[in-house]
């Protein structure tokens, strides 16, 4: 919970990791990729305030104590959601696995929700394993990495028929929140695995599922927004938007927030700090203090209300994940305003 100016905010960090990218965990022969990956993440941290930058050795592998401190002792987070990324091709025990997340969550009851992941290239065996993980860890969501390398394959698409089987299984198991990494393009070659068109496809087909597009499709927010206005079950995951822009590029942050509010509206934006790329403390405090600057270029966008910020920082995610919000932290008047979008006139 975060309190400022007499207002209380229930904070859900919907995008956190507990990873091990230390050299001991690098697969032999794949060191270049394992090292390049974590250094790439580390460079992103450079977009946050200088006093929050970590040295690379701490960033490669951080302790449980540090994570608990950064999120819950000083970071204002009430509930954190783990989003695993396996990357077993490069990291021996995986980079950030469901199992590692679940082990940590088990030691701190009530603090974490554990999401898992799937990869349709694993066929029927993977389907079975998914079901086991969901039942064992009580997962209500999955995090998908469509660009993950696997043998000769440089990624997969949600449009693949195999992916549909997994999404059907998710529906059956009550795993209704499908987080998809659609962020800054990294590896895929001409087959662009971070293109958002495959989300469009499955959002239409799977109306019972929520599709949270992490990093709002950056660097293609326009494709994402246009798609999201057509699909009522598509949400914007704000990891990278807040962490990567609010401090480093405040004007663009304002524009991006303005556009997201304009096209998607206050009920579709989901905060995530993306720990340990960025710590939640400065993001939560900064976002509560932030508002649309008075600037001619931003005149299309209204300021954010306190209620809108409460929704974005936690109440929207709480709704998707059925997280119980203490009465004093709920909105007094839960009426929501329809997103503006652009009327067809």
């Amino acid at each position: 919970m975060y309190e400022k100016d007499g207002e209380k905010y229930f904070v859900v960090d919907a995008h956190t990791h507990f990873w091990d990218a230390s050299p001991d965990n690098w697969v032999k022969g794949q060191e270049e990729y394992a090292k390049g990956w974590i250094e790439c993440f580390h460079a992103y941290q450079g977009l946050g305030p200088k006093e929050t930058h970590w040295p690379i050795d701490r960033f490669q592998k951080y302790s449980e104590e540090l994570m608990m401190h950064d999120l819950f002792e000083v970071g204002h987070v009430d509930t954190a959601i783990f989003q695993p990324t396996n990357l077993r091709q490069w990291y021996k025990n995986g980079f950030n696995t469901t199992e590692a997340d679940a082990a940590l969550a088990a030691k701190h009851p009530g603090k974490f929700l554990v999401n898992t992941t799937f990869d349709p290239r694993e066929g029927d065996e993977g389907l079975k394993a998914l079901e086991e993980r969901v039942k064992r860890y009580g997962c209500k969501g999955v995090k998908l990495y469509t660009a993950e390398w696997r043998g000769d394959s440089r990624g997969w698409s949600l449009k693949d028929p195999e992916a549909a089987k997994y999404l059907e299984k998710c529906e059956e198991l009550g795993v209704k929140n499908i987080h998809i990494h659609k962020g800054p393009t990294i590896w895929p070659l001409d087959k662009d695995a971070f293109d958002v068109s495959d989300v469009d496809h499955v959002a239409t087909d799977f109306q019972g599922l929520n599709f949270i597009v992490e990093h709002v499709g950056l660097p293609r927010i326009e494709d994402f927004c246009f798609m999201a206005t057509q699909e009522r079950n598509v949400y914007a995951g704000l990891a990278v938007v807040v962490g990567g822009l609010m401090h480093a590029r405040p004007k663009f942050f304002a524009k991006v927030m303005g556009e997201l509010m304009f096209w998607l509206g206050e009920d579709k934006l989901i905060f995530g700090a993306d720990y340990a790329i960025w710590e939640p403390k400065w993001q939560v405090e900064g976002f509560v203090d932030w508002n649309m600057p008075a600037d001619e270029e931003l005149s299309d966008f209204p300021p954010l209300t306190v209620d809108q910020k409460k929704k974005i920082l936690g109440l929207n995610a709480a709704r998707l994940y059925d997280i119980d919000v203490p009465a004093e932290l709920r909105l007094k008047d839960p009426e929501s305003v329809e997103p503006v979008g652009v009327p067809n006139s």
Partner: protein
Amino acid sequence: MTTLVLGARAAVWAALGTVRDPELDEPLTDLGFVARCEVDDDGHAVIRLRLPTYFCAPNFAFLMVADAYDAVAGVPGLTGLDIRLDDHFASDVINRGVAARQGFVASFEGEAVDELDTLRYDFVRKAVLAGTDRVCRSLGRDPRSLTLGDVPPSPDLDRLRARRRELGLPAEDGDPLLLDPATGTTPADAKRYLAFARLTRTSMEANSGVCRGMLRARYSLTEDEEGTG
């Protein structure tokens, strides 16, 4: 260094200034992607390019290195050209492919199925949208019935015309200011079209912001050092 050599370096720098990051629609020289640009007394040019992350998409990277090669190779008087992308996971493949004048598919044998024309086309289409917002926003009047000739001259207008020409779209004074780059027709719903143009511009500029910030963090640059090569 002689004046001649200084002149050659300036000519090479200017040539690099015509090469754009296809997605951001900004010159490599402004983005800080040129780490080194030298021409020795014998007219041999050495150019090193760099990108914001180790994993920047290899398709964009390939386009930029190949375009830089073509642009600099056209500078008169050069006797040799050594152009390379540094610190990228696909540096070797890209550098070899560009030096051998191979296409993208041949360079990434078995990993790529298409040349990059479609990708480039998509980005130019977006550049037209973003450019339309830039021009219309400073106009202060309803752009719906205006032509390009109604807009006061500006670098933004020149840039918009250039991008429209790249797509084969009309770009003369009498041609309409609002034009859907995908269809080449006047948009039916101008309000929606302009909102999308604004969004496209926001997207490109936000990306450019992220890229610049990442490059700064990666190479410990100050803001002033960006774009100095």
